[in-house]
């Protein structure tokens, strides 16, 4: 088992109200899966992403990564874990401004302690993989939205993580660029990468192989991608 969430909850106390952003969620992900997590806003899918990707700690429950209990990891251990095992693709790219595509992609390698030469070699290889080998020295401001997201994907891949988390990866892109990004994600999964993608677009979800539907902090459905039609219906009913 690659990633396992056992009765994971995340509660926030805001004034007198206890907000259950995530409530008693169980989930198992095996290597090579491509999972789309869907749900309306406020369904807890962002919280799920933060907790599953080690950015935040759960209030209750346990998390296992490669069968190791990582629930109680401290901040330094979490940082190492994120660096070694997890790749992030954000909706708003989150590239460093005034920094070349190459240096942006190399950033996880900096924190992994890789040598300069190795950083350069591996970052170049990754940019080549996403089709940007002619844009190594360009800063984000000199790249289109689609190109920026491809740089971000290269960055997510550069340290060869076990799982890639994508948070609305096409949310800030026009449809053409969005298609390019989706193609890359499909290709990555075909090569064996495990991808967990949070989205509210059925079109995006359609590229995954498995679908998890969340509502009010709980998992209400977990099925093969063929159930997408039913789920779309459920989502519409909910609205």
């Amino acid at each position: 088992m690659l990633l396992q969430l056992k009765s994971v909850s995340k509660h926030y106390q805001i004034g007198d109200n206890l907000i259950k952003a995530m409530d008693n969620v169980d989930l198992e992900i095996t290597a090579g899966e491509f999972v789309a997590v869907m749900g309306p806003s406020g369904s807890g899918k962002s919280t799920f992403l933060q907790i599953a990707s080690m950015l935040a700690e759960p209030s209750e429950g346990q998390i296992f990564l490669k069968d190791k209990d990582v629930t109680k990891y401290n901040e330094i251990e979490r940082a190492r874990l994120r660096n070694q095992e997890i790749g992030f693709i954000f909706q708003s790219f989150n590239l460093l401004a005034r920094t070349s595509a190459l240096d942006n992609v190399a950033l996880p390698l900096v924190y992994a302690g890789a040598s300069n030469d190795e950083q350069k070699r591996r970052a170049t290889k990754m940019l080549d993989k996403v089709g940007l080998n002619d844009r190594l020295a360009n800063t984000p401001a000199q790249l289109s939205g689609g190109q920026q997201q491809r740089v971000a994907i290269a960055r997510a891949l550069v340290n060869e993580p076990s799982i890639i988390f994508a948070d609305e990866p096409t949310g800030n892109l026009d449809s053409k660029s969005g298609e390019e990004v989706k193609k890359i994600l499909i290709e990555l999964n075909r090569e064996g990468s495990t991808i967990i993608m949070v989205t509210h677009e059925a079109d995006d979800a359609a590229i995954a192989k498995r679908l998890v539907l969340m509502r009010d902090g709980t998992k209400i459905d977990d099925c093969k991608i063929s159930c997408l039609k039913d789920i779309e219906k459920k989502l519409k009913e909910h609205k």
Partner: protein
Amino acid sequence: MYSCNDVIMFKTIFLIALKALFNNKTRSFLTMLGVIIGVGSVVMLTSIGTGLQAYVVDQFASLGVETLYVVPGNPFGSEGGFGGQEAMIESTKPVLKKDYLRRILRDNRDLVTDGVLMGVATTQAKYQTTTKKISLIGTTSNYEDVYSMPAAKGMWFDDNDNSKSEKVVVLGSKIAEELFGKIDPINKRFKIGGQTYTVKGVLAKKGSSFGGPSFDNYVYLPINTLEDNLDIQYIDNFTLKAIDKDHIDEAISAVKKTMLKELDEEDFTVVDQAQILETINSILGMFTIGLGGIAAISLLVGGIGIMNIMLVSVTERTREIGLRKALGATPNIILIQFLIEAALLSIIGGLIGLTIAYLGTLAIQPYFPAKVTMQTVLLAFGVSSIVGLIFGAAPAKRAAKLSPIEALRYE
């Protein structure tokens, strides 16, 4: 233990920090300006202080290290340093007598080669229509040798003049000019306190030592003449020449022993140049520290400027910090990055300030004895790095504590 990876990572973080400063050139420069001015003024002012100190010490040393003084009271006070008002009053007490000097010279021939006394009086002098208030020093002819003050024109009075109480004087160069103008004063007659005196010699220009009265302003006359004809106030000191510099301590105790036969211990003090130098050194040292301290306030202001900008920078770069943390930067790595940024601002600013102060010192050197010492340079450099680290600590801590989710969500 630090591994090879840590070293590589530190190097990379250093470059990241340097680049962050370079990406904001104007802001970085303006932030540095506080430190530039701070370090610049610290170095400049302390170099003026140390230069002055070196100059004064030089001047004193030129009087000769074998010189000893017997003075009334204790000019150094009971707590070291030059004493206060009390010591000043004591130093004009009329306790020293001519006979004591004779006795010192007679009893300590093996240690004290020469000696001269200085009696002081002030009165009016008149030449033709020019009237001047003058200070008189009554002394013996060996004053010339003890103080190395040869006559530039004419000659010094001799023992004969002294024993006969001849009314002859030797003029300091300045008072000679003031009284006689362009007229050659040698063998001219003029009035001191209503009596007529003849000018026997005029001294070479000597100047003052450290703001004290100038040797050039005095009128020198035989001590017996002074005692017989004018109202002598007190004997200022005996100035003695020790046989050589290795026997100074011995000479001091021998002179003391002789003096104790005449006076009580608290009535007089025997000192040498080294002691006086030490005291002046410590006073000027305090002066330098004071100057540096005042300038250090501007360095403090510079440090606060760095803290201010770094805090703004942390807020502005919240998203960047969140991203770095998400990608594997530990809180310590973020802390180090921001500390390096603050320290770099401070150190680069310090180096620029140092360069400016050095050039400034070179520029004023023809007019003032300023001197940049290695000590000052190291101090300024060290202090500016420490300022950067101290004032960078709060912003860096704030950056390190940011939660990655909150930071990534920050718009």
